[in-house]
C-alpha cells in the first residue's frame, strides 16, 4: 500500500480518532482483554521440574532466569532462562517462601523458619533485612521498599530501604502481594474470599483507600473459597492470580478476562513471567514447576530505571 507522508498520516489518524470517539465513544468503556491476547495457539504447559515437595515463590532475575523455593526441603532452585536446566541455588533456606529480586540484584525472601526477611546474594549466602516477622510473600519495589504479608498475624508490613519495618494494613488474612506497573497500587489476596484487595501506596509506604477491586474471582463448583494465592502483572496492567480454578487473569479495571487452565490436578501456588523476554509464564504447582510461552511480557520492578531512560 501507499505510504502517506507522515504529516498527512497524522492528520488523518487524528481525524479518525475524533470520529471514532464522537461516534462510538462508549466502545471504549467496553474494551475487552480476552485470553486470546495472552495465550499462543498451540502452546500449552511444559513440565520444567518435578519431585519437589511444595514449590513456591517464583522470581525472575534481569536475565530471565527463574528462581523458586521448595519450602519443605529448604532449597531454592534456579531455572536457566535459555536451557531450562534446574540447579540448586541455596540450601538450608529455613522454609523460605515468597521470593523477588530487587534492583540491587539481591534475591529477597520470606525466610519464615527464622521469622526473617532476608536477601540472598549470588553465592546463596544471605543477609537479614528484618527480624521477628512472620511472612508468606513479598513484593520489592524499584526503590527497594518491600511489602510483606503475614497471614497468621493478619498484617501487611512494609520495610523501607533503610530496613525499618512497620505494619501498614491489618484485619485481613493476606497471602499473595503484588504492585501494579507504576507501583501506585498494591494488590493483596485472601485465600478464602472471592475478591482481591487494592490499596493506594502513599509516597511514605503507607496504604490507603482499600477496595475489593478485583471481583468476583471464579469459584470451582461446590466450593466457596477461591484459594487465591500468588500474583504477577504484565506490562499492559493485566493481573494474574493463582487459584483452585486456575490462573485467573484480570484487566486493569478489575474485570476478569479469563481463567488459564491448571497444568495438572494438584495445587497451584504462584506465578511469574520469566525467560530472556519475560514472556514465559512459570507456575509453581505442588511438587512441580511448569511453564508456557505467552504473547505478553511480565513486569520486573527492578528494571524500572532502564525503562524510564528509554
Amino acid at each position: 500500500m501507499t505510504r502517506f507522508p507522515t504529516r498527512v498520516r497524522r492528520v488523518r489518524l487524528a481525524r479518525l480518532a475524533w470520529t471514532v470517539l464522537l461516534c462510538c465513544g462508549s466502545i471504549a468503556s467496553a474494551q475487552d482483554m480476552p485470553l486470546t491476547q495472552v495465550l499462543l495457539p498451540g502452546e500449552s504447559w511444559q513440565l520444567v521440574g518435578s519431585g519437589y515437595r511444595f514449590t513456591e515463590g517464583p522470581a525472575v532475575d534481569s536475565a530471565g532466569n527463574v528462581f523458586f523455593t521448595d519450602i519443605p526441603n529448604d532449597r531454592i532452585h534456579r531455572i536457566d532462562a535459555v536451557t531450562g536446566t534446574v540447579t540448586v541455588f541455596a540450601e538450608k533456606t529455613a522454609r523460605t517462601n515468597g521470593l523477588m529480586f530487587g534492583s540491587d540484584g539481591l534475591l529477597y525472601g520470606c525466610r519464615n523458619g527464622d521469622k526473617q526477611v532476608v536477601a540472598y546474594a549470588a553465592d546463596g549466602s544471605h543477609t537479614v533485612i528484618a527480624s521477628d516477622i512472620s511472612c508468606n510473600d513479598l513484593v520489592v519495589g524499584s526503590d527497594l521498599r518491600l511489602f510483606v504479608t503475614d497471614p497468621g498475624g493478619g498484617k501487611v508490613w512494609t520495610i523501607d530501604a533503610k530496613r525499618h519495618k512497620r505494619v501498614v494494613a491489618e484485619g485481613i488474612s493476606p497471602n499473595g502481594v503484588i504492585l501494579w506497573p507504576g507501583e501506585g497500587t498494591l494488590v493483596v489476596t485472601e485465600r478464602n474470599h472471592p475478591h482481591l484487595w487494592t490499596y493506594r501506596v502513599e509516597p511514605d509506604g503507607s496504604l490507603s483507600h482499600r477496595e475489593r477491586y478485583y471481583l468476583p474471582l471464579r469459584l470451582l463448583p461446590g466450593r466457596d473459597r477461591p484459594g487465591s494465592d500468588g500474583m504477577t502483572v504484565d506490562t499492559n496492567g493485566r493481573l494474574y492470580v493463582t487459584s483452585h480454578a486456575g490462573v485467573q487473569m484480570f484487566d486493569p479495571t478489575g474485570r476478569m478476562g479469563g481463567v488459564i487452565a491448571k497444568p495438572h490436578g494438584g495445587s497451584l501456588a504462584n506465578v511469574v513471567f520469566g525467560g530472556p523476554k519475560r514472556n514465559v509464564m512459570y507456575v509453581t504447582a505442588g511438587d512441580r514447576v511448569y511453564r508456557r510461552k505467552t504473547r505478553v511480557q511480565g513486569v520486573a520492578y527492578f528494571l524500572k530505571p532502564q525503562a524510564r531512560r528509554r
Partner: protein
Amino acid sequence: MINLVNLVNLVNLVNLVNLVNLVNLVNLVNIVNIVTRTTLFALILLAASPAFAQDNYKLGPDSMLQQGVPLGVVTQHKWTSKKVFPGTVRDYWIYVPRQYDGKSPAAVMVFQDGGTYVNTKRSFRIPTVFDNLIHKGEMPVTIGIFLNPGSIPATRPGGKPRRNRSFEYDTLSGQYARFLLEEILPEVGKRYKLSDDPALRAICGISSGGICAWTVAWERPDQFSKVLSHVGSFTNIRGGHVYPAVIRKTEPKPIRIFLQDGTNDLDNLHGSWPLSNRQMAAALKFSKYDHKFVMGTGGHNGRHGGAIMPESLKWLWRGWNEKTTAGEKKSR
C-alpha cells in the same frame, strides 16, 4: 483481528470515560500519532464495520433548541468520596430547569457517565431534551445529576490512577445506590429541594452505566423506581448476566424500566449484549414488570438511544402528574 485487538488496547490506554475531557482527547491523539500503520487499518476497519452503517439514527426536534422554551442551567462540580468509594474523585454536573421554583421538591434523574449525557452537542443532549419536555409538561420539573465514574489518583510518582468505573457500575451490590443516597443526593440536596418519592426518582446509563442503573433500582426500589438503560451491559463483566434468571425467581419489585439495545451491539468475552438484553426483556415480561424494550440495529454507542431519548423519557415519566397528585392526596 489482531489489529482490532491493538486498537482496543490503545483505546484502553486513556480513560475514555470522560469523553468530554479535552485532555484525554489530546492524549489519545498523541498516542495515535505514534502508533503504526496497522492501527490506521484497524481504525478504517472499525469505521467501515457494519455497526456504523446501521447507526444512522437522526435526532428529532425535542433534541434541538426550540424557540420560546426556557433554558435550564447546568453547573459543573467535583466530588471526592470519603465514605462509600473512599479516595475516588470525579466530576459531576447539575441541571436545574428554569421551572424549578425552589419551593416544591423537584423530581430527580441521575445519569452514569454524566459527561456523555450532559453534553448538548452529542447524541443524548439531556439538558436540551429536558428543557423541551418539561416545557411541554411531558415530564416533571426534574433536576438532572450527571456523575462521571470515580478514579483514585496515584500519589506515588509514576503510579497510575485506579479507574473505578467498572467496580462502581458492574458490581452487583448496593454500594453505588449507597453512594447516591449517602453522598450525592444529600450534597445536591443542600442546594436544591429534591423529591424523596421513588416515583419521581429515575436513573439512566449507557453500557455498564445501564446495568448500574438497574442495580440501583433493584437494590433500592424504595428510592429509585424508574430506569433507562442504553446498550446495557447485562453480561458477565462482574456477574451481571444472572439478572434475567434472578428477576424470574424474585417477587417483582416496583420498577419501571426502558431498555434500548441494537442487533450490532457487542459480542465479546463478557457475553452477547443483544442476547443479554433480550433475556432481560423476556424476564421482565415473564415477571410482569412495567417495561419497554426497543431493539434497534446499532452498535455499542449512544446514537440510537440518543435519537429515541425524548420518546424514552416520555414513556418513562408517563402519568407522572397523576402519580404526584395521588401521592399528595395520600399524604393528606
